[in-house]
């Protein structure tokens, strides 16, 4: 038991520490607080694990614990050295974070509630083995193949060969550290991702709102049943949500501060998103739209800095995005399944109302989302009334994601027939990918509208 615990700690600490050191190096002015360095570091860490495990077979080496420890020890040593060389700059807390706000009994109560929430999700995750459809069919199955073969076999030999490998490779990583195949403990990756994301989400809220509202915002984020389910089962959707929303949040921060490390980090997270799920590659269109929108409307940069930013964004994200698709091309892997394919026609377009009906049905389903999307609709009305259009980007992004999924749904043949066979709302699952952005919008709008309400009260 102690050995397993130590091995698991090592499996978590190695990527966490490496990611943390990478983030410290990129955020050279130390603008972000240390807990965000750790949170973002975790994301970069699991991305790095999958990248390293993906490249090891290219050198005809096989997976082993010793090899992993050697690679990560070398990386940690180099990064520590670079961090020491770069340690002149001191930690700077951005002025907008009101750190002098004292902890009240309400804060303590909310923090304890969140901790209980997370603890239940954590224990629930590791107390059930891999059992859901996607996990058994692709994710854990691939991880099991990688674990027992100690390499990545020819992609075409694997089921669902076109799917990206971030999560299966991370599960393999955990099992190699445990030393035997385990159906329970590698699922730990899910609650750790949740914890990491909660910190990032909290930070994003604190830019605008008070500590109390931010803590309530976290509970609101965790309350939909969809999120609770997907953070405990080993599906790629939750990991994609983490990478996708962090990418958007970092671009949002880049827009606010015009601090290049945020751009670099966002492109790294975009790369991880594309290596998590196929949708991650499609999201790149949205990232690029937002990126160019910021460049052209907010910054209005010189041609030189425009190209500099563009090259930076592409250089960090494109290798992963194109790399995996190129790898699939070499292995003659075709996209999609034989049952459904993308095809835009008038007949497909006529199905739009039906698809929209399914989509809305999934969103207003109380068991999946409680009242969240009704709250979102009310926030939208509040936001229209507001003078200060804070959160404008967020609302546009939510609609872009919605449009992307709608257009894919309209263009997919046999889509409705497929949806009707499923027990669980497919659109609920897809909406999860951008749900935190909508949640952040709700919190921002509520906060702004309350302030406006108070101002009106004082005037009267």
């Amino acid at each position: 038991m102690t050995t397993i615990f130590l091995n698991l700690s090592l499996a978590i600490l190695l990527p966490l520490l490496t990611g943390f050191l990478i983030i410290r190096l990129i955020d050279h002015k130390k603008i972000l607080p240390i807990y965000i360095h750790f949170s973002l570091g975790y994301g970069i860490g699991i991305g790095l694990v999958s990248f390293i495990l993906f490249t090891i077979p290219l050198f005809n080496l096989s997976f082993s614990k010793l090899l992993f420890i050697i690679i990560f020890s070398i990386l940690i040593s180099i990064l520590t050295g670079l961090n020491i060389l770069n340690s002149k700059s001191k930690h700077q807390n951005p002025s907008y974070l009101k750190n002098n706000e004292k902890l009240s009994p309400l804060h303590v109560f909310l923090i304890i509630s969140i901790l209980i929430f997370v603890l239940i999700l954590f224990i629930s995750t590791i107390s059930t083995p891999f059992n859901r459809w996607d996990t058994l069919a692709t994710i854990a199955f691939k991880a099991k193949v990688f674990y027992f073969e100690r390499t990545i076999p020819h992609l075409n030999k694997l089921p669902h060969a076109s799917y990206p490998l971030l999560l299966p490779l991370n599960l393999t990583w955990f099992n190699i550290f445990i030393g035997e195949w385990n159906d329970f403990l590698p699922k730990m990756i899910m609650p750790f991702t949740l914890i990491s994301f909660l910190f990032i989400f909290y930070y994003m809220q604190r830019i605008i709102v008070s500590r109390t509202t931010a803590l309530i915002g976290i509970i609101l984020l965790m309350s939909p049943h969809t999120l609770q389910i997907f953070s405990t089962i080993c599906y790629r959707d939750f990991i994609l949500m983490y990478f996708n929303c962090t990418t958007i949040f970092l671009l949002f921060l880049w827009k606010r501060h015009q601090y290049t490390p945020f751009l670099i980090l966002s492109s790294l997270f975009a790369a991880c998103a594309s290596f998590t799920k196929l949708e991650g590659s499609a999201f790149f269109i949205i990232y690029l739209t937002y990126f160019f929108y910021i460049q052209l409307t907010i910054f209005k940069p010189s041609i030189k800095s425009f190209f500099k930013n563009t090259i930076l964004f592409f250089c960090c994200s494109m290798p992963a995005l194109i790399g995996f698709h190129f790898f699939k091309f070499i292995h003659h892997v075709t996209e999609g399944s034989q049952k459904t394919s993308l095809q835009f026609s008038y007949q497909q377009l006529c199905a739009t109302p039906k698809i929209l009906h399914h989509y809305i049905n999934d969103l207003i389903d109380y068991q999946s989302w409680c009242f969240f999307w009704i709250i979102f609709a009310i926030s939208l009305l509040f936001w229209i009334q507001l003078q200060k259009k804070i959160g404008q980007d967020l609302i546009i992004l939510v609609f872009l994601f919605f449009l992307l999924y709608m257009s894919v749904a309209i263009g997919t043949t046999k889509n409705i027939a497929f949806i009707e066979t499923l027990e669980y709302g497919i659109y609920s699952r897809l909406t999860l990918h951008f749900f935190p952005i909508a949640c952040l919008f709700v919190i921002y709008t509520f906060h702004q509208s309350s302030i406006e309400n108070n101002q009106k009260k004082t005037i009267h």
Partner: protein
Amino acid sequence: MLKLSKNIFILLTLLILSLILKDFFEFYTIRISLLCALAITFFLTIKRIFSLRHLVFIFLILTSITSGIYCLFLTKTPEIRSSWKNPSATYLRLFSNKYNFYQAAKKNITTYCDADLETDLDLEQLAPMTLHRQVGFLLFPEISIRHNRFPSKDCKVFLFKENAKSKIPPDQKIIFKSPTGDFIVTQKEKIE
């Protein structure tokens, strides 16, 4: 007087809203969450911090949150309790007694092998497809039906196959058979 009537109006609106919602959604979780949300909103109404629209908004947020917490406790805690008492019972709960068959088949195998799956099930349908993926995952690595590792397939897995026995090749022997005969695994006999 005006403030009092305003507060009464807010409370009545919320009460009607909760009654409508309670009838609309026939889930027992919502009743408790609605009560909690109503209680907190009542407190805020007395304090007179928020406007009417904000109170409705807060009420919905609170309902979502309390319902989320309630759902979590209701669904996850019994799951956790049963799993931590007996992990193997968790497998049985999730995969029924099929899990024991898979384990027994894996134990009886002499060497790891790739297998052909023979079935009468329509694997394009969701339920049989799910069963196929379960079998594929739980039998691996001893018996592989979804990933080829060896030049030849030395095993056969018969899953809900009529007259399975008549289809067993002469050079293979049964290494596991479920009591109902729905699940049979055969392996090529070694020639010494």
